[in-house]
Structures are given as C-alpha cells and as structure tokens.
C-alpha cells in the first residue's frame, strides 16, 4: 500500500472528528439566522437518519483503513445486504433476513481477507474484483430490479421518532458505533488491529497472528456493511441492486475526518461517527439555508476534495519537487518527514 498509505505528519495536527462535527453544528446554528430558514427537530432527525445509512459503511471502510488496507467492496456488500434482507425477510421473517445479510457480508469479507492474507497481495485490486463480483451477485439475486417488500411494519418501527431528535434506526446505529468503539479501543482486538496497521512485520515478530487479524477485519467489515444494508432495506421496505458511489465517497472522507490517517494505525469508530455527523450536518445546513441542490453538490464535493487534499502527508512541499535538482537545494528535505522516518 505504498502509495495509498504513507507516513504523515501534517494530518495528525488537523483537528479531528469531534472538533469538525462541533464546528459544523455551530455553522448550522449560526448560518440560518443570517439567511433564511431555521433549525427544527426534523433537521436533527434527517442528520441522524443519514448517519444510520452512512455510518455502517464508514465504520466498515474505516476499520480496514486503520489496518492500512482499503475495502472498495463495502459499497456492493451494503447493496447485497439490503437486497437479501428484504427478499429473505419477506419470506422467512426479519430475523432470518438480517442473518442472511450479515452472513453474506461476513463470507464476502472472509473470502477477500483470506486471499489478501494468503497471497500477501494489495487489498485494492482484490476488493475491486470483490466489488464487481458482489455487485453482479446482487443484481442476480434481485433479478436486475428494485426489490420491494409488502411488509412495512419494520420500516415504520425503524423510522419512528425517539426522544424528538432521533429515529429508532439511528439509535440502533449509534449503539452499534459505541460498541464498535469499545471493542476497538479497550480490547486486544483493537490493539492488534492498530499494530498490524502500523507495522506489519513488527506485529508478526511480537506474536500477533497477522493473517487472522486481516481475515477477521475484512470479515467484520463485510458483516457491518451487510448489516447496514439490511437496516437500510428494512427502513425503506425496498432495496436497490444498483450500486451508488456517493455513500462511498462520504464514508471514506468521514473516516479521514474522524481521525483515520491515510497511513493507517490511527482512528476510532467514535471519531469516524463524528466524521459522518459532520458531513451530514453540512448537507443539512445547505438544505436549511435553501441553497440550490446543484450548488449544494458543488459545496459538498468541494469540502470532500479539501479534506482529501488536507490529508496529503506532504502538503507543505513546494512545487520545487517537480524539479528534483532544485528541491535538493531547498530546505524541503528538512521539513520532509521521509528522511527522518
């Protein structure tokens, strides 16, 4: 993963998840008072409902990024989870439907993780192939069309309002994020994950079973993505096999906002959750201030691009790097973390 995950120094000083989420929240409170619109309880419910959709994807993607890998397939696993949950759920009940989605996600993760660990191969091409395979499978299972359910009861329950600001679905996802956080920050599992993300060779020498950590993390990633898809499918009583890329962009950027360095080893589920909230709050602010949806897309896209650029490890490097001879004579080498690391 040499190009994808390099050592970084600048990015560690960027204010992380909670700080950015709070800043976005303040903007949402202040901006409407200067223009039009006002912040209602419904806006918070929208933010948390968006959280229920994007957070599982962001956590699924984030944990593989903490391990210095990258799971592109989460987006199609999410779609497969939705389609399976709705389809199986209709015939055999919600529990079996959820189980099918979770099992399919976990199997997809185990297969990809095993290939990555066994062959010592970059996760990017493997999960890209996995993305296509799972997407194709989703289309086949769904028969090439949207899968709808006649049973609206689970959706009504999941979208029911709780404590004015939340929906039941969002409460469940928040609980899931907190559990994931506790698991990753206070157990050996999390420590092993970060160790493997930080230095794979040293982890192996210190006795960590690296292949198991890789397979386990990809299994967890698939499982979470499948579960997220199931929750989404049940919430809206339908699932679309067509894979959309927008949630993937939000998931990756939310993970970066949430403290996941592009060199791996850092970041936590709560941080990633805050990243998702920050992006959701930005979108909702644009809705409240009645910015046209076209302009809103540009502003959100610009924000995502800015975060992607800020996460670049050598952001302070001058254009002189284009001419290596010049760069060597400049002070760049003293600022560049590479020679000292």
């Amino acid at each position, binding site marked *: *993963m*040499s*190009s*994808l995950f*390099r*050592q970084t120094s600048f990015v560690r000083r960027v204010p992380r998840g909670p700080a950015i989420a709070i800043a976005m929240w303040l903007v949402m409170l202040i901006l409407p008072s200067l223009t039009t619109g006002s912040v209602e309880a419904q806006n918070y419910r929208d933010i948390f409902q968006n959280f229920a959709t994007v957070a599982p994807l962001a956590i699924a993607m984030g944990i593989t990024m903490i391990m*210095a890998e*990258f799971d592109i397939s989460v987006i199609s696993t999410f779609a497969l989870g939705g389609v399976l949950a709705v389809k199986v759920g209709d015939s055999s009940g919600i529990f079996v439907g959820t189980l099918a989605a979770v099992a399919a996600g976990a199997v997809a993760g185990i297969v990809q993780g095993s*290939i990555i660990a066994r*062959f*010592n*191969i*970059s996760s990017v*091409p*493997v999960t*890209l*192939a996995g*993305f*296509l*395979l*799972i*997407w*194709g499978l989703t*289309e*086949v299972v*769904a028969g*090439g069309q949207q899968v709808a359910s006649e049973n609206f009861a689970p959706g009504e329950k999941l979208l029911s309002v709780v404590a004015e600001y939340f929906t039941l679905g969002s409460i469940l996802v928040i609980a899931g994020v907190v559990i994931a956080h506790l698991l990753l920050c206070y157990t050996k599992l999390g420590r092993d994950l970060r160790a493997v993300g930080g230095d*794979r*060779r040293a982890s*192996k020498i210190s006795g960590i079973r*690296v*292949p198991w950590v890789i397979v386990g993390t990809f299994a967890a990633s698939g499982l979470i993505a499948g579960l997220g898809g199931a929750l989404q499918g049940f919430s809206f009583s339908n699932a679309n*096999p067509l894979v959309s*890329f*927008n949630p*993937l*962009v939000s998931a*990756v*950027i939310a993970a*970066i906002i949430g403290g996941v360095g*592009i060199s791996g080893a850092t970041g936590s589920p709560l941080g990633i959750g805050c990243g998702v909230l920050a992006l959701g709050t930005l979108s909702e602010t644009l809705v409240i201030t009645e910015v046209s949806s*076209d302009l809103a*897309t*540009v*502003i959100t*896209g610009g924000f995502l*691009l800015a*975060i*992607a*650029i800020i*996460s*670049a490890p050598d952001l302070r*490097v001058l*254009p002189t*790097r*284009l*001419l*290596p001879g010049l760069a*060597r004579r400049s002070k760049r080498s003293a600022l560049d973390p*590479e020679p000292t690391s």
Partner: protein
Amino acid sequence: MNSVASTSLGTPRVGPLRSPVTAALLGGGLIAAVAAAWFVLSTDGFATWSNVKAILAASSFIGIIAIGQTAVMISGNFFSMSMGIQAAGSAMFFLYALKFGLLPAILMTIVIGAVISALQGYTIGVWGASPIILTIASSSVLTGIIVLISGGGTVHPPADAPSINFLGDRVGGIAVSAFVMVGVAILAQVFLSRTRYGAVTYLAGANRAAARAAGLPVAATVVVVFALAGLCAAVAGIMMSGFQQTASLSLQGTLTFDAIAAVLVGGCAVLGGRGSAIATLLGTLGISAINSALVLRDYSNGVQILVKGGIVLAAVLAVHIWSTQRR
C-alpha cells in the same frame, strides 16, 4: 512504508508452485481459461465478422480510457476513479465548444481534460495525496460543477455547428473510434517505452524511493501520467459524443470500472512498475469478447458483472503469483 506486497508475511519465500494451494489454483485457472475460451468461441454468432466489428466498437471508449489508466497504474498510483466523469464531462464540453469550430473544440476539450487531471496528479505526486481518495473526491466535485453548469441536462451540438458525423462513422466496416483506440495505444506505448518520462514512470512504480533518491523527476512524471490519463478520457469523451450526437452525465455509466478492469486483465501490476498499453488493449478486447458471448447467450447484466469480477480477480492473482515466482 506499510507495503503489503513488499513484505514476506504469511507467505514463505519459496516458489509459489511448490505450495499445493497456489499450484491447485493455477491448475484450476488454466482449466477455467480453456473452458472460457471454448464457451466464448462456441457461442452462436460469436465468430462472425459483424460481431468482431461490434466488439471493436463496444470496447473502443473503454479501451481509450484504459490506456490512460495504464500509465497511472505503472507509475505506482493505483488508478484514477474520476475517469468516467471526466469522459462524460469532456463529451458535454466538446458539443458545447463546437460553436467555436471543430478543431478549437477538440483542442480545448483535450487541454481542459489534461489540465484537470494534471491538477489531481499534482496533489498526488507533489503532496503525496492518496490517489484513490483524491480522485474519488475529485469525481464528486467535478459532478457538482458539471451539474451546476449544465443544469444536469443533455447537451446537443449547436444548430450551426460543424458536422461531427465522421467521429461515429465506419471505415471498412470498422468504427473510427476503434482506429483511434489503436492509435492512442501505439502513441502511449511509444511514450512508455521510448521516452525519458516513460522510463521514469516504470522506475517510479517499481521503487519510488530509489527513483527519488536517484534524482529522477518522480513528482513531475506523476503529473504527466495523470495529464495523459485526462487526455485519454477527453479523447474518449469526444468519440462518445460523435457516436451519440448528444452528451449527458449518464454517459459515464460504468466506464471507470470497466477501464480499471481492462488494465488489470491486461496484466498491469497494481502496485506499479510493470504493464503496457498494448497489453491493456488486449485486456480490453478480451473482456469485450467474453461480454459479447454472454450477451449473445442472453445472460443478464448481473451475470455479466459477476463474470467481469471473476476475470479481474483471476488476472490479479495470476499476475501476482507470476511476479512473486520471478522474484
């Protein structure tokens, strides 16, 4: 560096064929390849001249983009996730710019496409941004800008615009775009194997630290290969608009992934340092041929995507095993 592929964890340092699992996989892969060849060639209507022409036409847009992606992948920067949107945006801009005349429209489209991509290459090459994350985010902002400018609608050529029918024409029964694809592949191959920047592209992909230490212009090369990829996407966009006579964002379809799949099937090493434009051309044609057989046999879109994923996985594993065996 946390390079997964460069460490020896999990895999003992022996020839992969000595491992029963990999040997079985390779054997299975060979049998599958023979079966696939039989499956494709025995398809009714596959081995006909008209189907060959259809395969060439269908693969041309993907092929042109894939050739640009090949340079990016050889340089060790994975791939650009914004190629589909850049091709669609280029098609839309080209039709709009036709009011300035045909040649200015072509030049403007190509220059703008190359510059947009070169800017992404700059942040990746100079600042070390992650290529996948940056290009995903770029595609998001490009989509927003294109929707804002175009209103999200379809662009038609101006009423008094010069004719662009020749772009969608056929010569000797073969689509002009197929000739363009072959021409772009040859030019890209000349760039990669006959120029200084081409040599640095391979070196940067094989060992970036060493290339940098040797004082080679690694960052500038990354900018150049991304510019090349943007240029290819722009050419693909121009050809698509000539073929369709209209352009909208929906033109991007699954171009990005189809092109990446073609590069991987063409045997390009995903971590860089190895690959060729001609091999990518063959990879593109291979995928299109198999897809054509599936379409002729009336398989659904889902099965087509599934098979494409299987081919990509097989190609990636085969290239990986082959390269570790040589090491």
